[in-house]
């Protein structure tokens, strides 16, 4: 069950999710990478004391190091915390809002990373909530800020607004028709960037791309978000128009592609992560194009997260090697299909 995926999603035929985060630091402490775990714990306690007064919503506090390693990975695979949190688990901790739409990460690369996560295309709401939490904390905490350079961050690539706004798009048809590289190049020229499913350094799988702002200084938050908004709208339209074209001109080929994937995932007994993601990507496309009609197909993203290594092991309650995971993955997917076929 992935709570943050709940709720109405805008433009979900193309957009999977929207994520916003801001980086903030407190003036009186060294940045996390330069603190020892004891100092880091002192800072964490300071922040927690302050937050008690300002955060009215229900948040759960979790120290990364208190989690079994499988559970740490589960949080990462669900996009609730960043992989960096595990790397710095001797210092890091986080507050997770009950609906999982907001996480406040403590001692990641910066003292605070406030993240909001929404399903579908929802930059406005994502930024509204993120900025609101930022304002609440700002009332009590002394943020590191410079008039010229804005919010000071551990890495010069985040200085200024400390904002990373990112939209995860499913772009199978733009990719299939060989147009994706032109788009990625064009994005770079206007200060935006495309990454894979799990952010920086991750491979693009299942035609899922995270488009986000690369630069954080010189534009206001609203300008950054507005630019991303406009560009993503254009990409959505492009993907849709190619889908319409393919549906009109190559319907049989599209059906063939999608039903082949349906056949494979309905019957496989062993499925690697890569193969499963490829076919689920086709299933998602089939649903978005109206070729596959069951409403449960809108939950394909949840299934894509459920079949990630740590989530599988968590689900089966034990450590598994690659082979065991591939068997379990095939089983989870078959059960999903059986469930909707009734």
């Amino acid at each position: 069950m992935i709570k943050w995926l709940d709720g109405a999603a805008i433009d979900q035929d193309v957009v999977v999710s929207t994520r916003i985060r801001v980086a903030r630091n407190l003036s009186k402490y060294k940045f996390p990478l330069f603190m020892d775990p004891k100092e880091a714990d002192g800072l964490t306690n300071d922040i927690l004391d302050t937050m008690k007064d300002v955060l009215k919503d229900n948040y759960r506090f979790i120290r990364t190091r208190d989690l079994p390693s499988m559970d740490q990975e589960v949080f990462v695979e669900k996009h609730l915390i960043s992989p960096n949190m595990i790397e710095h688990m001797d210092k890091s901790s986080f507050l997770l809002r009950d609906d999982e739409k907001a996480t406040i990460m403590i001692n990641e690369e910066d003292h605070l990373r406030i993240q909001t996560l929404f399903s579908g295309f929802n930059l406005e709401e994502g930024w509204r909530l993120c900025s609101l939490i930022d304002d609440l904390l700002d009332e009590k905490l002394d943020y590191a800020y410079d008039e010229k350079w804005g919010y000071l961050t551990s890495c010069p690539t985040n200085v200024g607004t400390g904002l990373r706004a990112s939209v995860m798009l499913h772009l199978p048809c733009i990719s299939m028709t060989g147009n994706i590289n032109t788009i990625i190049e064009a994005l770079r020229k206007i200060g935006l960037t495309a990454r894979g499913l799990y952010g920086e350094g991750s491979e693009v799988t299942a035609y899922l791309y995270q488009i986000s702002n690369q630069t954080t200084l010189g534009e206001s938050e609203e300008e950054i978000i507005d630019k991303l908004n406009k560009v993503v709208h254009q990409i959505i339209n492009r993907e849709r128009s190619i889908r319409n074209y393919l549906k009109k001109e190559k319907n049989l080929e599209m059906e063939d592609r999608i039903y082949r994937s349906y056949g494979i995932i309905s019957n496989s007994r062993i499925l690697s992560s890569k193969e499963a993601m490829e076919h689920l990507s086709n299933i998602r496309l089939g649903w978005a194009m109206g070729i596959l009609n069951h409403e449960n197909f809108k939950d394909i993203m949840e299934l894509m997260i459920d079949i990630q290594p740590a989530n599988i092991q968590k689900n089966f309650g034990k450590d598994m090697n690659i082979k065991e995971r591939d068997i379990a993955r095939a089983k989870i997917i078959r059960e999903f299909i059986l469930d909707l076929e009734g």
Partner: protein
Amino acid sequence: MLCDSCGKNEANFHYTKIVDGGIEEKHLCEKCASDNYDFDFDKPFSMNKFFTGLIDSIQETQRDYTEMKCGYCGQTYSEFKRNGKFGCIQCYETFKDKLNPLIRGLHGHNIHRGKIPKGSNERIFLKREEDNLKIQLEKAVKEEEFEKAAIIRDKLRELKIKLDSYGSDKYD
């Protein structure tokens, strides 16, 4: 093929080492390879390192920064160049002269125009208002809306008086 070290993940890194004339082959997964000291395994290409590497070629070295050290966190300039991360907010002050070209190179700008913390000095808010009015004035003149421009100009004058009462500007 599974990783020689953990036996769990698929091996993606294969290498051959010659030790005392004998050949040793190793097959490791990504995680174990990154933990393995035989490798200089630089995980996702680091943009920071790339850019910090450019600082000195962008700007002529006027002083010797090699031994320059942050008084608060103890990071030296060469360490900063290597890992691309600041140790504390004092580093921004310590390496100030070097940062303009670096930050401009990364962002294409070097002045923040986003949010301002609520508790900041009033002057910072006024300065921001002034910057915004200047942009509006330029636009009004360009579009030949001279009445509008005159109103903005008057507002700017009022602001200037207020700002002057705070003393000199930090970054002009």
